[in-house]
């Protein structure tokens, strides 16, 4: 069982790393080509197959071992979670398999934080992507540069952060995730802003 979970999470990692370098119509039309990161954006659409294996925008969340995007109509309960400097107001969450939860996330801290549902391996992969966002000035300590997110990274990839299993929020902002936990397992809620996970901004999520 353990093994199948691991092998599955690996494929998921490639598809649904929260920072999907997604192709979106907007990015293709309006992507800025600055930054010296190659000129892939000028290539034709047929060449725009992402090379880094992050899947396209339509694959989001599919196959996430922790479940899938839920429908609002199926929500059985709402959990409100506050984020402050490097912790969540709830660090242990238990849900039932098959349950759809609406998470309302508030960033009550002074820096950008994320609420992301996934496996430890997914978070690890996502942390590398987040580091890249920091390196490129997309992510600052206390703000998100949305314009830069749309920057074309070459091959039509952008650094947009629009995954259904994640809420990346500036200080003072709130966000919402509706998530269906399909099957039992142990997962993590985590903030993958560089350093935050290692400092302890991670919680246990058990699906029974």
């Amino acid at each position: 069982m353990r093994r199948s979970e691991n092998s599955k999470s690996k494929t998921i990692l490639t598809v649904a790393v929260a920072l999907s370098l997604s192709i979106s119509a907007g990015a293709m039309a309006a992507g800025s080509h600055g930054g010296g990161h190659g000129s892939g954006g000028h290539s034709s659409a047929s060449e725009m197959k992402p090379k880094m294996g992050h899947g396209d925008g339509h694959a989001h969340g599919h196959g996430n071992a922790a479940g899938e995007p839920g429908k609002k109509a199926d929500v059985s309960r709402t959990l409100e979670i506050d984020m402050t400097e490097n912790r969540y107001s709830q660090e242990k969450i238990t849900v039932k398999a098959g349950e759809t939860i609406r998470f309302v996330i508030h960033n009550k801290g002074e820096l950008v934080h994320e609420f992301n549902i996934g496996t430890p391996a997914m978070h690890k992969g996502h942390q590398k992507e987040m580091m890249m966002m920091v390196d490129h000035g997309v992510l600052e300590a206390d703000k998100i540069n949305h314009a830069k997110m749309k920057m074309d990274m070459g091959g039509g990839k952008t650094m947009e952060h629009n995954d259904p299993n994640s809420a990346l929020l500036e200080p003072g902002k709130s966000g919402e995730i509706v998530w269906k936990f399909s099957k039992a397992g142990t997962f993590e809620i985590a903030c993958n802003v560089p350093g935050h996970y290692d400092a302890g901004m991670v919680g246990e999520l058990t699906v029974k």
Partner: protein
Amino acid sequence: MRYSKSMARRFIAAAFIAAVPIGAQAGTYNLTVDRVKIDTGDFVKEGIGYNGASPGPVMRFKEGEEVTINVKNNLRETTSIHWHGLILPYQQDGVPTISFDGIKPGETFTYKFPIVQAGTYWYHSHSGFQEPDGAYGAIVIEPKDREPFRYDREYVVQLADKHRHSGDRIMRNLKMMPDYYNRKQRTAGDFFKDLSEKGLSATLSDRSDWGDMRMMPTDIEDVQGFTPLINGKGPKQNWTGIFKPGERVRLRFVNSSAMTYFDIRIPGLKMTVVNADGNNVRPVTVDELRIAVSETYDVIVRPTEDRAYTIFAESMGRTAYARGTLAPRAGMTADVPKLRKSPLLTMADMGMAHEGMDHGSMKGMDRSAMKKPMDHSNMKGMDHSAMKKPMDHSGMKGMDHSAHGGIGAKKSDAFYAAGSGLAPKAANGGKFLSYADLKAQKPLYEHRPATREIEIRITGNMERYLWSLNDVKYGDAEPIRLKYGERVRFKFVNETMMTHPMHLHGMWSILDTGAKKWNPIKHVVSVSPGTTVYMETEVDAPGQWAFHCHLSYHAASGMFRKVIVEGGPEASTTTPAREIQKAEK
């Protein structure tokens, strides 16, 4: 009540009136200063300690507490305790001749001050060479609010470089023969090796440059031959901290060495740095870090395996190592790595990169990273006294790091001269902490332009073991005068070939890393050879303070200043009647 920007000024005023807020704790602590036996595992010698031991007890305070500390001097000489990094009224700062008269033999001095900060600090004697002789201990201050990080247990990991010789004897020997303790001198064998690798003219020219500088490429540690200690234990005695696999462990590293910088790593574990010099920084995960003399770094590690891990701290000159262990059970050990090869200083560390010369390649040099290469195309016959302009890294500041792009792009560390032999590399090829990685978790002060700049040239004459600031030693120098309320920008220009940890008492040192409002707040700023480093200070503490290089024998031979803050809530800056040693020898 964190010492926040909004209340910075008001607080000082309040603190000096010594109003104890209702509900605040008030603790009384007692310390005795004693002659003690110090056993390093390599040798046993007499030294100085607190409450009968060296290091002294870990002093645990709580932010907001009003502390009373009775210090009884059981020595036959005057003593003092300086609370390194603590913000307090200057009369409580513990520097004889500057803050007070010192504590005479048999006397008890009572320190009394409010604790206005949290984090890891340390305390030590500021009299003579009592600190190298063992008079030091750690301070841990619990914050009022929750920490922005989690951990299940914590340990102080206090480093020291214990020498067989007393501090007085080391100073005498250095004065007599500055390379007395340099066991890594270049030999005739090295000369012939260079000859075959570089050719005759390059080798001769290289030797002559170093000779003219009265320095050697091995001048990284003035004082070798010590046994590094962790919490008083030598490598053989193996200080051990216990953990349960999966726990987060906070390690509070304090470098209480007299002279030695350490490169710290724990093979098999990543370290997440969460605090530097007592102030929280945005967590940054590294494989290795360098701790300057008198700095502190707090890291969180998470050992998940049921096995031992070695805490390995190599001296910067690779002449010795401190070793301790983290283990699930007492008595377990892990492999102890070998010391890496000693680095050699390069011409870049002299402030002169041999660009375009026929000297073979400079080790580790990244020419493309040199923003302002100086034109040394004709070094021969050059007037070395003119070499007073190390490279100015201020130009790096506006540099857009995003331009470096991409994961894995190695940035050169702006806090070392390009081509420096000292620029560190992680043993496992991973991430080595740089000052540039330190970003304040919560800025203490509002970011504002400095009101004026003060240039401090860090100077010395190695041949006579004279260390100075702006070429003037402490005994001949006028105090530095600051005005209460100003924000001073200090420009440190290191004209020596050694690395100096500059320590300003009483006020924070805001290190300019180019991160503007996120610049880290420190109490020690290390300045590498051949570099210029800027720090800013909000002058918010009246009185008079010490400012010096924290290498014990540099401070004592003149790299020291008195700083007088004029004006402010308590303007009277009475000079203590008696003048007691420290500094000048």
